[in-house]
């Protein structure tokens, strides 16, 4: 019963969070200086009447309250509206951008999790040795690097060996599955690597810290006294108990995947959701921004909920 209460409370809290975020998303973009139709009405052959026509078309001539009600009604019907910029459904724009983003960001995040966990474990296990110094310094170094700068350096280093822009070679005629796969793999390498390198340091530090804590526990000492092999101690006793904070970090990272990676997508001309959101900000494309931030909100809230529920499962002390 206590467990059910916990789940209901967390779910209700998540729903309230989403509703508040929806309202804030609506208000926030409208508070920014500049109008949604200013740029769109400045096309070469337009007359001053275009501005008014666009306002009417987008419903911006109505009061903010009326616009909010219309927005909520549309949401209830699962309609995210139509983009001001290209006049296509926001859901279509988001779907296309998301499909482009997910493989690249997932791969980068996976790289970060694996390398970060590995280096974190090594750093903790080899505490006080040059290995720890090298591992932690490298992790901190990459973690503190400006993402776009690292991307540009990789472009300079790998240009000619790996593609520097785009998702695929669009000039390939009728490629076989393997040719297409190899081409996609070549294009995804540098952006994913950039993301992975920037992110892995965070995992290194968290895993190292959690591991150091567990390695100091009495049961580890007991395991050593029993003569277990070092790797067995790490794998079976230390790492498993150190995974609680790592699970939170992984859940948070997964929640932010739908936000894309604006800087990486820009540096590598990757047409993902990060760039779509950035463009929407510049163009004051309210429906697109509302849709993208709603998606992000739901994703973050969902994965936080998953982390909460996972904690509940992983650590029964929470319910006590």
């Amino acid at each position, binding site marked *: 019963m206590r467990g059910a209460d916990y789940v209901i409370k967390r779910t209700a809290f998540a729903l309230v969070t989403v509703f508040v975020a929806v309202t804030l998303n609506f208000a926030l973009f409208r508070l920014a200086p500049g109008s949604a139709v200013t740029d769109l009405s400045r096309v070469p052959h337009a007359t001053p009447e275009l501005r008014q026509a666009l306002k009417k078309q987008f419903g911006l001539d109505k009061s903010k309250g009326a616009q909010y009600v219309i927005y909520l009604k549309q949401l209830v019907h699962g309609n995210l509206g139509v983009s001001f910029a290209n006049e296509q459904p926001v859901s279509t724009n988001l779907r296309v951008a998301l499909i482009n983003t997910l493989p690249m960001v997932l791969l980068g995040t996976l790289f970060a999790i694996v390398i970060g966990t590995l280096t974190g474990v090594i750093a903790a296990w080899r505490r006080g040795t040059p290995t720890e110094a090298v591992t932690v310094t490298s992790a901190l170094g990459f973690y503190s690097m400006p993402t776009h700068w690292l991307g540009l350096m990789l472009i300079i280093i790998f240009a000619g060996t790996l593609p520097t822009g785009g998702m695929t070679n669009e000039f390939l005629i009728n490629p076989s599955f393997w040719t297409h796969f190899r081409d996609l793999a070549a294009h995804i390498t540098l952006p994913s690597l950039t993301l992975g390198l920037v992110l892995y340091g965070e995992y290194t530090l968290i895993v190292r810290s959690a591991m150091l804590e567990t390695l100091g526990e009495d049961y580890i000492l007991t395991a050593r006294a029993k003569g277990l092999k070092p790797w067995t101690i790490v794998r079976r006793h230390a790492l498993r108990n150190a995974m609680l904070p790592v699970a939170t970090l992984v859940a948070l990272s997964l929640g932010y995947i739908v936000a894309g990676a604006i800087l990486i997508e820009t540096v590598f001309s990757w047409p993902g959701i990060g760039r779509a959101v950035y463009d929407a900000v510049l*163009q004051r494309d309210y429906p697109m921004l509302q849709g993208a931030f709603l998606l992000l909100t739901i994703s973050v809230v969902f994965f936080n909920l998953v982390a909460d529920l996972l904690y509940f499962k992983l650590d029964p002390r929470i319910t006590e």
Partner: protein
Amino acid sequence: MQARRLAIVGVVLAVCVFAAAASGSERKSGGTFRLGTSSRIDSLNPFVAFNQDAYSTFEYIYPELIQYDKANRNFAPDFATSWKASNGGKTWTFKTRGGAVWSDGQPLTSADAAWTINTALKYKGGATANSAGLIAHITRADAPTPTTLVVHYAAALGNVLGQFQQFPILPKHIWSQHTGHKGNDLKSFPNNAPVVGAGPFNLIKFTKDQIALFQRNDKFYGPKPNVDAFGLQMFSNDDALVAALKHHDIDAIEDVPATAIKTLRGSGFTVKQVPGLDHTDFIVNSNPKKTKHRELLDPRVKTAMDYAIDRAQIVRVVFLGAAHPGDSIISPSSGAWYNPAVKPTPFNLAKANGILDGLGYKKGSDGIRVANGSRMSYDVITPTDVHSIPRTFQIIQAAFRKIGIELKQKSLDSSAAFDAITAPNGKYTDFDLSMWDWVGLVDPDFMLSVVTCEQYGGWSDSGFCDKTYDAMYSKQQLTPNQAKRRAIVWQMQKYLQQRKPYLWLANLDNVSAYSSNWTGIVTSPQGPFNSISKVSLTSIQQK
């Protein structure tokens, strides 16, 4: 979806093979010309599109009545082979090509042109408002025969051909199905690839922010392209774009960043540098009703500021030599419309100080002058998306300091910057100074219009409103004789130079770069992919 994509690619391949086989030996034909750009195509719908590359796309996939010739100076036939004015210039008759077809095999006739014009007219207050300027003063268009188009005007105009040069003709049998909801369906129609067109190329594939792939249209009514296809690959990072050219992942760049010109020349690439249509400006609020710092309305103050701008340094430092000192609202690349008598104001701080001293604006203890009881300290509104502005501002700021004027940069994104300029509510009474740029057209009408009173709340970013100027603007618009019109256009440039709503900074060059495997390059002020003519990409061929 995958099957559909493969089918399209298969068709492309088949057509390419067929085209190559059918072409014979008279042309060094074939190949795919891969053009890289840092710009992009925002929409394939002419009633929605905003970016220049979208307009260039329409130039190459749709017929237009008129285009410019190879030199980008004179009008040349496109879908119209000849034209004449009658009824005192109020009626224009165009003879159009016979036997032309759309890419889906439907006949292309003057009825398509008449329908496009009449539809744009019908919804000009709403769905088609973004092209309303191109059909100004038109009352009706008729197609009495499949090869005759008659356009009726309320008054005799001077820029009829210039307007039609930018007006794509749409296939009536496609677009007439999308006029519902008072024409608003015209805007929601995505016009996805493969697009039904009739230009020298068919747009067969378009992936937003990635690629636009154009295949040669062998049914085109005009000179056929030499290449089988060309693709526009879009990059969001200049360094990656240049790296792609250097490693031959692409064949050309349509707008080379100034920092890469020397490197590309040194690496054996063909670099074409021609005067462009983009020019940067320093804007002085010229609204007579402005409330604060009214000394800025005095042409003598503006002249002093003009003398304090070191254009040579801006060209050298900001544009690394890929520009020329600016002087007029019409850039030299507009050809005969540019008034050569309007010269850039020389850099002369002594003269600037002399003018301000003469006006009695004495310097305070901090070195800043005081005019009408207020320090001559001004905010300069600058948009974040014009990348040359920050460095240009620093140069101007340092020089202005030496004449006792303090400038403070107020950087905003373009939407917020324009709203700050027009504040409050389109009255232009709040702002003092700004910096921006203009990308003009070959015909001067558009650039001359941006300082008319009618453009308040529209294109105006200077608050300039002058009845004498407006009268000259209307006069040039209603003067069909081009020599007489040119005289008025020259007079208007002189008039603006004296009143100085803009202090022109630099006329930018258009710089494009090509791999040495390609020849037949035709330059234009907008680069190889442009909305000026269909010549550039139909002429290019492999060596």
